[in-house]
């Protein structure tokens, strides 16, 4: 194990006040430490000097909860492919490096403090249709509905999304299309998701627009930044599903009018 001497430029911001980069020297960082452990070490040092530690979101630190969200040298989650910030290790850096650390930037993700952002928009998009309406206790036996392995595997590919928002941060338009297409795509491609497919698609896309995410211009930065390597093919599928649902909607077959009475 060796030690790295680094120089950081870290974004500092309190709520809606203007932010700025702070220069922080980071000597003697073990190269086996993770990026967040490096931030822990820096915070310990700031605290001992009576300074304000850097606030950042993190929880599981094993790449699955999706809480960590740092833009490192301009790239969401930093330089390692298919890796969240918490799984990025310092051996990817060289002594003498200057590292820029910023929050994920998007109008729909307001900064709360320093590197912490509010991703409530993602929750609200899923509340607008990202589910199958089924009551607890109602279902039939699980094997009564055979689902081909290929279909199940594809749905699983989409379901791997951890909702971190790197796709939004990577996009010049701050589009949430990769996220929304993965979420809608998982359910839209399974038989369980068919009855509500149109309603789900329209609901989620409309909520996405309402939240202030930008448009997709097919440059695939999102796929390159995604720590779970979600494919942009899901965006194609969402566009297709959206076109069909919109057409039906325009022809007066609005999903809102569906539904029966008791």
């Amino acid at each position, binding site marked *: 194990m060796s030690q790295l001497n680094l120089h950081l430029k870290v974004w500092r911001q309190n709520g809606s006040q203007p932010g700025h980069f702070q220069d922080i020297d980071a000597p003697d960082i073990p190269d086996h430490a*993770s990026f967040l*452990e490096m931030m822990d070490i820096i915070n310990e040092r700031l605290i001992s000097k009576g300074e304000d530690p850097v606030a950042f979101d993190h*929880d599981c630190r094993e790449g*699955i909860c999706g809480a960590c969200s740092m833009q490192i040298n301009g790239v969401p989650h930093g330089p390692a492919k298919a890796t969240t910030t918490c799984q990025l*290790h310092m051996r990817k850096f060289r002594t003498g490096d200057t590292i820029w650390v910023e929050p994920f930037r998007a109008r729909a993700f307001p900064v709360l403090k320093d590197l912490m952002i509010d991703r409530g928009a993602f*929750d609200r998009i899923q509340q607008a249709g990202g*589910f199958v309406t089924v009551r607890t206790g109602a279902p039939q036996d699980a094997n009564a509905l055979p689902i081909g392995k290929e279909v199940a595997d594809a749905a699983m590919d989409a*379901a791997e999304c951890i909702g971190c928002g790197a796709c939004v941060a990577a996009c010049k338009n701050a589009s949430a299309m990769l996220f929304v297409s993965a979420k809608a795509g998982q359910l839209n491609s399974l038989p369980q998701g068919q009855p509500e497919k149109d309603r789900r698609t329209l609901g989620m896309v409309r909520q996405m627009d309402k939240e202030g995410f930008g448009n997709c211009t097919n440059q695939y930065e999102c796929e390159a930044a995604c720590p779970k390597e979600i494919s942009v093919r899901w965006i194609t599928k969402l566009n297709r599903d959206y076109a069909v649902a919109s057409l039906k909607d325009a022809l007066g077959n609005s999903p809102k009018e569906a539904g029966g009475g008791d």
Partner: protein
Amino acid sequence: MSLNSNIPSGPMGMKWSKHKQDSKLINPKNKRKFTVLVVGSGLAGSSAAATLSELGYKVKCFCFQDSARRAHSIAAQGGINAAKNYQNDGDSVHRLFYDTVKGGDFRAREANVHRLAEVSVNIIDQCVAQGVPFAREYGGMLANRSFGGAQVSRTFYARGQTGQQLLLGAYSALNKEIASGGVKMYPRTEMLDLVTVDGHAKGIVTRDLVTGKIESHAGDAVLLCTGGYGNVFYLSTNAMGCNVTATWRAHRKGAFFANPCYTQIHPTCIPVSGDYQSKLTLMSESLRNDGRVWVPKKKEDCGKAPDQIPEADRDYYLERKYPSFGNLAPRDISSRAAKEACDDGRGVGPGGRGVYLDFAEAIGQFGAKTIAERYGNLFDMYERITGESAYKRPMRIYPAVHYTMGGLWVDYNLMSNLPGLHVLGEANFSDHGANRLGASALMQGLADGYFVIPTTIANYLVNEKPGSITTEHPEFKKAVENCTAQTKRFLNIKGKRSVDSFHRELGLLVWDKCGMARTKEGLTEAINRIPALREEFWQNVNVPGSGDFTNPELEKAGRVADFMEFAELLCLDARHREESCGGHFRSEHQYPDGEAKRDDENFSYAAAWEYTGNLSQPILNKEPLAFEEVHLAVRSYK
């Protein structure tokens, strides 16, 4: 105080049916007058909140994470058990029940475990209907695997991320109910205290982690779904935010804490590499299906590269000691065996705390491609963390704290001894006894939330007048004042040490004295040292910032303060239990071959500790455990 577990009468297989039949009903019009507070949004919390809302109750759900989807259930890798017998390999509800009671080393309540096994089948149906993408076979049927010491294939899985997929299913149900207006969600909100009125749980006090605002919430019942206390050890596989605060605060308000000494150490984690380490990463136990565990036979070989150690000089100690289970021996047994090998000076890697998990034979037999298909994501994760490729050299693994079987005492209705306070999932003590089997945690969280509490909560609510207590009640004011005062106190200490430095010191002490092997002497030493550390914490901790804005250090301080108190109870419980069982191994109590020696005559009970105001002198209440179905036997895996 005598504890009434409210186990229904009748034969074991009929108890839950009978109880459902006998449970009270609340008419739909009245249900919407009741408010239920659900703390935590993991598998237990999300599934309970969603299902109670479907039934018509008004629900408020709280989580400290920024989204309900990030609760730590998300990180479970391996799978979920269910007695479906889709493989036709002889599984049944009874066999899952039997395995769980035996796996728990005969320290769980039989009736609860049987219910768990019964509803396990409904969980899979429910999850599939929600669109959870479980692994499937080409014919479209669900796939299963054998997992964690089971001799049948009853584990359902979704790649290496079953926890995320099940939680996303429960979260989608929760979203459906949020959209319908039945659930109000409070993310980035941490419970600081429980409010009791005339002994009944009637509300909570929370802190908004963005604005710092301390608020009151009144409800007709409170559900704690707040997970386990593994982070008392500082280093564990738990997420950084996992904490004991909700259950500990409830304990201080009168709820009994049961069997805290039952802690599970997971055998396959990546070893500690340095003192900057913030958490330990679990490598799924499924790796043991193809990996062989070994250490050098000779101490002097430990520094050599593993490929320089010939077969004859390797000790495949699990295969040697447990020929019928081999590398698949249960978690507690595998963990202790690794510790023994390292204590013997034959550990590998930094600090000598590691053993090899070797895939060379499996790669030779099936090819690297097949192994990559099975474990590719795990091998990648291992390489990211250690910088080593497990295709080329054996993994190094070591046990780490993973799960806690102890928790708040609950009766068959999942209600604690405080009326109105219900406890679900890992936060309660009821189903796993002294040791939890692999793929059973997800099962229990969802069983409690989807299928148990929606029936049993009515047994409490039916006698309550809805909305009778509001946040105007003086008990709320008092609790808010206490929480506000604690915040001020933290900020005014302005000491010299960070919160983490105290947490680390506490964790090392507890791991050392109350970890994989415990002695009366070591526990006594810990019990003597914890109060002094706690005292120093309150004199010398440095919590920067203010109380009225985002302040992660303040959040940690509150959690560590509670761990400082809880740690003493953990060690007291471990010292009082003069036997070895499951995850609790007392070095004084073992057979000559090193196996755990239970004392059924004297310790066949759940230890439910009562807070007295003096942390060093809690009162011990006992719930005797009767075994009607499964005969007490030595738990042998040889």
